[in-house]
């Protein structure tokens, strides 16, 4: 769990602003996926609070100058949660929020998985799991080698951590003392289908309790755990990360898959699924939106 707070305390107004940003991200995720009749849900919803904290608070970025050389980098290694990232970027001002309704469409800049050659502001193309952390390591290393004060954040899924490349990177990064490399593991305890077992819907979580933190620690990373839906706690952990200790950082963000939408929370089958109109209405109500007019959103 996070320890002492470093840096200036965050006032209640900032917390409210970030919580509202997270809520808006979730709303746009549901709206876009409903409209596209395609895309992923559980992952973007579990990651929404952390994405809000990064894009609206922590990352040193310039949405009107997406290629600013000294920006902090962010890579969504769990690229299937792309609509969560796109929503955060749109709400932060990278592109119009209306463009989110082109998600997953032909010729859209908002491809099913992030394509950096199409959308300015994406720091890496991802989607084939396990790769983002290596690219982030290259960015953190590149920043060091060129003497730039740039941090590289990368968000991984807990299921994604089954990919061997994740542990190749985990093994290599401490050799270069990259404390400007921050891996956030969205630990939502579910993957697309999962191993059969004695868990929700007959599936078991990708890792047993404590396993995720222990693995990163064993590879020599500085490990911080946080409730990934507690905005104050997220900001606290991000404040701690600003002061490096020579080790790359792994933040285990404990989350609920499908967070914020009652009937999606904790169910693997909402990893990716088409939303029916009646489900859409419930989801929007759960997220504090007014009931959509009949048929208006599609």
């Amino acid at each position, binding site marked *: 769990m996070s320890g002492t707070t470093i840096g200036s305390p965050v006032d209640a107004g900032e917390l409210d602003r970030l919580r509202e940003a997270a809520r808006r991200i979730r709303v746009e995720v549901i709206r876009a996926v409903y409209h596209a009749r395609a895309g992923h849900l559980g992952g973007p919803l579990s990651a929404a609070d952390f994405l809000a904290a990064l894009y609206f608070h922590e990352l040193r970025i310039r949405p009107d100058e997406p290629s600013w*050389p000294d920006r902090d*980098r962010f890579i969504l290694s769990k690229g299937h949660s792309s609509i969560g990232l796109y929503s955060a970027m749109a709400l932060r001002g990278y592109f119009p929020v209306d463009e989110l309704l082109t998600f997953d469409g032909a010729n859209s800049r908002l491809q099913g998985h992030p*394509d*950096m*050659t199409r959308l300015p502001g994406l*720091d*890496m*193309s*991802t*989607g*084939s799991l*396990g*790769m983002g*952390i*290596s*690219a*982030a*390591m*290259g*960015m*953190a*290393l*590149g*920043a060091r*080698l*060129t003497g*730039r004060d*740039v941090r*590289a954040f990368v968000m991984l899924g807990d299921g994604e951590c089954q990919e*061997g*490349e994740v542990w*190749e*990177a985990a*093994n*290599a990064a401490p*050799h*270069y003392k990259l404390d400007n490399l921050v891996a956030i593991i969205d630990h939502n305890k579910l993957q697309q289908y999962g191993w059969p077992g004695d868990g929700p819907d007959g599936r078991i979580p990708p890792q047993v309790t404590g396993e995720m933190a222990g693995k990163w620690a064993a590879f020599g990373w500085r490990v911080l755990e946080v409730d990934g839906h507690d905005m104050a706690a997220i900001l606290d952990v991000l404040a701690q990360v600003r002061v490096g200790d020579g080790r790359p950082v792994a933040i285990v963000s404990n989350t609920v898959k499908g967070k914020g939408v009652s009937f999606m929370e904790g169910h693997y089958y909402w990893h990716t699924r088409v939303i029916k109109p009646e489900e859409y209405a419930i989801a929007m109500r759960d997220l504090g939106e007014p009931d959509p007019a009949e048929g208006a959103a599609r």
Partner: protein
Amino acid sequence: MTLEMGRPQREIFGETVAALADTDPRIYVLDGDVGSSTRADIVEKAHPDRYLQMGIAEQNMLGVAAGMATMGLVPFISTFVSFAVVRPLDQVRVLIAQTGANVKITPSYGGLFTGQTGMSHIIVDDYAIMRAMPGMVTVSPCDDTEAAETLRWAAAYEGPCYIRLGRDATPRVFGDDHEFRLGKAEIVREGGDVTLISTGAQTARTLQAADLLAAEGVQAHVLHVATLKPLDVEAIVAAAERTGRVITVEEGTVIGGLGGAVTEALAEHRPTWVHRIGLRDVFVQSGPNDALLEIYGLSGARVADQVLEILRGS
């Protein structure tokens, strides 16, 4: 003509990248723990801060290279061909080729000469795989001179490229005044009876075959195709028109490799009688270099034999 022996391309790799690093602060070598083999150790000795050990983890190494490239650096990859092409193939595809990352995939131990390692280390489908990948420039220099030129070219080129380098000394085809030009094939011998098209270190052995063929009264026209992509279709069509008969010769699989590339180009632009000499759907065993060239039909003498056989049968 007798070709003099050149130097191993892997040594040229170490020396050339070290020399490039003298003047270009962007250049780094990423090593998959084989620097003492690929001669990345030469870079390390000259510039310890430009040598980055990535451990025995090629998927991560190629991904790190992609990330470094976005920071304005120019990573050269040090490993064996098999561990640069197929082991991290998806990383090369998604992180490097798709993004256009300025990463130089420059492994050695290409082709059959790998120090008697056998099927795990000898990969003969690298031409086919890399040239099929969208956005990937694919180059196979024939000797030490051309290897140095292609590495210097790669440092100046903005974008991903694959350069197959060799482990052992092979005969020198070009003089020191040679100039590599991307996408340009070169006539290395004139003749009117049959066109032999070759790439990489095989070109020297194809020239040796041409000498043997001349003694049999067959004048071979030999085209060296250092760049498999972008392919010099114009030169290939011209070489085909010169003799009306084309035989490709490569230290690689004919399926999708140089033989595939030439056949595709001629089928589209000038349908021509083509035969392909190279590896035919086989994994390569370990053994001394000369023995492997004999077994797989790639020595000068074996190529000449096959060409005569093909011509007799036509």
